[in-house]
């Protein structure tokens, strides 16, 4: 239960002095009913750093992050086959661990911004009112504060009680981020959060991710190689359910150790 994973897991360059780990994956195998998708995954995600997960379609990137907050098990027949995921040294798949608490601590943002059939304020407060006791006045202030963090407060000051579905795609994605932040997570997982957005909204989200990394550990799955290069501190490259290389982003892009990594970032394999 209290097995500690150190940051010296030979996953990064020897010269690199890594910060303390927030989340560690140890010999992880996972999959769906009929097929295994992840094979022997060892990875470390560092506190207050942005880690990008890159790889071709179907390589298991999304499965990997859904393993990290136990959302994979929501799919019938899917789950972890073996291995561990450690959050602050504690295995999140331990029988004593509460899946609800794990999901609170490790928030996730999906590719398509999904708003609930309620007002903007109620959307922000969705998880917060479940996990915390907030008075009526506190609720509004709390929602406004988190909308402020994602830069929506001034934009939506007169629309706070309007249905959330009326917002644009970029605004809805920021609303989803505000909803996750209002849950007070330690880690934020993002599954291609910009792929459904236009370039302007994407830029906005990227800036936000950089700002948030001062407070949160961020793990981002992306197809966009340039985006990974722009925003992340660390990069993991995957193919066929396996991690082929993980290191500091600058090293991955400037001096990849593996030929496959080089080919992928050069766009030679898709």
């Amino acid at each position, binding site marked *: 239960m209290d097995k500690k994973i150190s940051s010296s897991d030979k996953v990064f360059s020897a010269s690199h002095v890594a910060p303390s780990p927030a989340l560690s994956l140890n010999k992880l195998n996972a999959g769906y009913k009929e097929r295994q998708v992840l094979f022997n995954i060892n990875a470390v995600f560092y506190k207050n750093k942005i880690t990008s997960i890159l790889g071709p379609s179907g390589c298991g990137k999304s499965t990997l992050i859904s393993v990290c907050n136990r959302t994979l098990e929501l799919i019938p027949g899917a789950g972890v086959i073996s291995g561990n995921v450690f959050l602050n040294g504690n295995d999140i798949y331990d029988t004593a661990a509460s899946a609800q*608490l794990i*999901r609170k601590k490790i*928030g996730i943002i999906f590719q398509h911004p999904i708003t609930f059939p309620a007002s903007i304020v109620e959307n922000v407060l969705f998880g917060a009112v*479940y996990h915390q006791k907030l008075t009526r006045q506190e609720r509004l202030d709390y929602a406004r504060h988190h909308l402020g963090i994602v830069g929506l407060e001034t934009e939506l000051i007169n629309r706070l009680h309007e*249905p959330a579905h009326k917002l644009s795609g970029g605004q809805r994605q920021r609303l989803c981020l505000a909803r996750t932040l209002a849950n007070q997570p330690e880690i934020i997982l993002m599954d291609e959060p910009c792929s459904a957005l236009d370039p302007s909204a994407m830029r906005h989200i990227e800036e936000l991710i950089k700002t948030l990394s001062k407070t949160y550990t961020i793990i981002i799955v992306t197809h966009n190689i340039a985006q990974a290069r722009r925003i992340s501190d660390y990069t993991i490259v995957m193919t066929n359910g396996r991690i082929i290389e993980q290191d500091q982003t600058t090293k991955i892009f400037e001096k990849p150790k593996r030929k496959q990594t080089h080919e992928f970032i050069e766009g030679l394999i898709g």
Partner: protein
Amino acid sequence: MVDKTREVRANQRLITERCFAVLVWIAGILGIFIPLYIITFITINGAPILSWAFLTLPPAGFPLGTGGGIGPAILGSLALITIGLSFSAPLSILAAIFSSQYCTSHNFLVFVRFFAEVLASVPSIIYGLFGYALLVVFFDLKISLLAGGITIAFMMTPVIFVGTHESFNLANKELQQAAISLGVSRLFYIRKVLLPKTLPSILTVIVLASMNAMGSAAPILLTGAIVNSIGEIRLDLPVMSLPSHIFYLVGEAVSFDHAFGTALVLVGVLIFGNMGVGWLKWRYIKNDG
């Protein structure tokens, strides 16, 4: 040669497409015209008898039904539907929640769904027979509002269950994932997201089931209906109902005018019921999406 074959094929496609369009137009016009014709026919024949007295007074005259009105039948029909709904709506919605959110056995789900669909299509007289045997005879509820209401609940439950289950399944799975991934419980998700999201569809299916049950004479003829009443609504007493009153007026050749008048009231209730739900749905979708 090749060009000519292509041209012939293109012409054939064009003819097929035009024939299909004509067929669809005819079907569409018939689809609108037939219900309109039925409603107009009932209105023309039933409107002359309508009056405040007809809507409020009990039947009178000799033979009974040639005078007076249908006040107790309107009240009785509403009471039967209220009792039927108070049993069937919560039961079916809870069963649909169980089957879509908690049940993990695919085979069990297929089994339940199959039998619910079969039950939803069972003729209403069979529910009447079952209600009579179980409630009136076995549980000794007598022919009463309660027995009639529960029989109607038997009839509505599979319809509401299948419709609600379908709307739960159609609700975006991503919505569930987004909610649960915030660390909330399944119950919280059901209460705050699933039910509000599917409320318009659930309302529609409830109203359709109620309207269908309200218009059925067969299930209550054997369990809860009576030919005459002064309008007293009690669980242990039988009640008049609109469809059974029409059945009596026509079956006994009492009064076709009164039968058409009753039919017009029944159709009016059904139209207003559907319009009411349509309005509620429109308002809900407009406000909450």
